[in-house]
């Protein structure tokens, strides 16, 4: 079964103060689908004034919204989840069209996970409580969590709806208003969501600004009317945003990518069973979402005594990846999100080869026929080499994995931690000691143990080292969107006696 490209309007404006509005300049930019490089629609090319309008709308709404009850905010978050669920297929199709990823992923992962994040935060705010401590018999310290006010959120193009759903619900649940800028490569599902939920929230609570980084992203990140910036992206922009935030003395959270190791100890091959099958799939998950995942398990580390036998299976499983029309439910890996991404990945494969890495499979673009010939497809690629090579050290953000072997636990840990980043890692073993000790030794915010690429709303996610700071998902994300009001109350009738 195959879907076809969904229908779009000719153009879409920004969503500010509860309605769609044209950009002040009247300018729009064209957004193409990476599946066949054809036009999707035109989106607002926003500038400073549009950003200001959105920030003003959010500021005007923040007082009332911040004072709504947790119960009513939760009800609205649940309503959004229901609306997305009702239109699940439509969201999945638009996401596939805009990003290029396979429809089986958007239907089974992106959209259902997004829905669950809205529901999770709706539930969290009903169950959590502030705290109160009796410091002495007459003194009570009461901690009330208050919203920050207006949050700026800048999200990437690899999981457009899911990244929006990681960021919006906790900020809204905490009582903030938001100005969110989707990546210019993937503005479509954010727009579709606003069409569907335009009337759910009071005007100004959610505002969506489209446009280019230097023209819209920068004025948003540096805007003094914003109380916090949450960013997912790369290191240089992360540094710039922190710099702007320092001017406003604003808190920031940063999720900046990684070069995640996926470690396979020899015990995985002790049996030829379901678990070995799972481990091989775990290694091939580098190709999930075309490798365009900040936690892409882009370094495979295999214990040397099973290396040949294990990699033979991994290569065979990788070769079985069906690359076809992303709208086809049998497609296992879709298009890279854009031409520049495509070019960058190919240039990495080239430098990998030059550095002496051996191509175990793939190693080139993938040419598809017909309309797809203009799309951006790359073969899933396995490069064998050593950890000092650039392909082992830099995030390629494509379906390219670098594989090497290790002798023992100590060497596995050394290689795993020999990276600038620390976002994710995978550990695969049947050894009960390794199951605990190895993850503890890895410097990364999320270590998947005998699994990979699971992102439940209830588990905190975030980076060590140059992968950023702050945690997303989980109750603890709420605290990145709040401040603590401490009320120190004296029930003592007597004065201090100083004056």
């Amino acid at each position, binding site marked *: 079964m195959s879907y076809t490209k969904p229908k779009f309007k000719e153009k879409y404006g920004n969503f500010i103060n509860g309605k769609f509005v044209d950009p002040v300049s009247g300018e729009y930019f064209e957004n193409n689908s990476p599946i066949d490089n054809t036009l999707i629609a035109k989106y607002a090319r926003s500038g400073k004034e549009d950003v200001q309008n959105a920030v003003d709308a959010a500021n005007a709404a923040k007082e009332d919204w911040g004072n709504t009850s947790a119960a009513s905010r939760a009800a609205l978050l649940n309503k959004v989840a229901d609306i997305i669920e009702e239109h699940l297929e439509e969201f999945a199709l638009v996401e596939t069209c805009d990003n290029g990823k396979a429809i089986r992923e958007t239907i089974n992962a992106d959209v259902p996970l997004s829905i669950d994040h809205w529901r999770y935060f709706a539930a969290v705010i009903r169950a959590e409580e502030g705290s109160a401590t009796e410091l002495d018999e007459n003194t009570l310290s009461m901690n009330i969590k208050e919203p920050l006010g207006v949050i700026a959120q800048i999200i990437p193009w690899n999981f457009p709806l899911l990244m929006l759903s990681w960021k919006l619900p906790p900020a809204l649940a905490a009582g903030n208003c938001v100005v969110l800028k989707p990546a*210019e*490569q993937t503005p479509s599902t954010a727009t579709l969501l606003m069409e569907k939920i335009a009337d759910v929230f009071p005007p100004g609570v959610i505002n969506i600004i489209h446009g*280019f980084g230097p023209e819209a992203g*920068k004025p948003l990140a540096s805007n003094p009317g914003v109380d916090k910036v949450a960013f997912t992206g790369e290191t240089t922009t992360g540094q*710039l945003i922190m710099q702007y935030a320092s001017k406003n003395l604003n808190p920031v959270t940063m999720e900046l*990518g990684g070069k995640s190791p996926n470690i396979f100890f020899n015990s995985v091959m002790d049996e030829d069973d379901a678990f070995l099958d799972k481990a091989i799939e775990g290694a091939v998950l580098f190709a999930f979402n075309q490798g365009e995942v900040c936690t892409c398990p882009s370094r495979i580390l295999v214990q040397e005594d099973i290396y040949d036998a294990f990699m033979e299976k991994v290569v065979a499983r990788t070769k079985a990846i069906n690359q076809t029309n992303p709208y086809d439910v049998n497609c296992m890996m879709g298009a890279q999100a854009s031409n520049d991404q495509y070019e960058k990945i190919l*240039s990495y494969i080239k430098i990998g080869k030059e550095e002496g890495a051996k191509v175990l499979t793939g190693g080139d673009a993938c040419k598809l026929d017909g309309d797809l010939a203009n799309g951006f497809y790359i073969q899933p690629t396995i490069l064998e080499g050593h950890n000092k090579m650039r392909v082992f050290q830099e*995030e390629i953000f494509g379906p390219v994995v670098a594989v090497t072997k290790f002798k023992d636990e100590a060497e596995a840990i050394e290689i795993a931690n020999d990276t*600038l980043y620390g976002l994710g890692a995978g550990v695969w073993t049947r050894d009960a000691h390794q199951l605990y000790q190895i993850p503890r030794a890895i410097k990364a915010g999320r270590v998947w143990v005998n699994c990979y690429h699971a992102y439940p709303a209830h588990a905190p996610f975030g980076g060590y080292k140059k992968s950023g700071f702050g945690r997303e998902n989980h109750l603890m994300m709420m605290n990145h969107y709040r401040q603590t009001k401490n009320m120190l109350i004296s029930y003592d009738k007597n004065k201090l006696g100083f004056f």
Partner: protein
Amino acid sequence: MKYSRLAITEKAIEILNQIKAKNGELIFHQSGGCCDGTAPMVFEKEDMYLDDSDILMGQLEGVNYYMSEDQYQYWKYTHLTIDVTPGRGSSFSLEIPLGVRFIIHSRLLSKEEDKALNE
């Protein structure tokens, strides 16, 4: 200096000059990490705070090219050619509104280049 770590294509020079005409003095900063990372980004000279942790890789058309030091440790054996390709990015790099992205083509330094630049 006889050897350089950097080169730039004619097409990239053209784009760089367009940006210069509009924005004045510029710098390049090589980004790492997620999504739009591992790409050269161009900013107005005063926009980004730079210090000793940013290595000056060289100069292209009067524009300094920086990279953070820890990233440089892995990159210093490669030669970079800055080029442009049609595309979009969500960073703050100034070429993005022009519908192009700067990209790099890398190759390993030759033995002579490595000796001259890294020893």
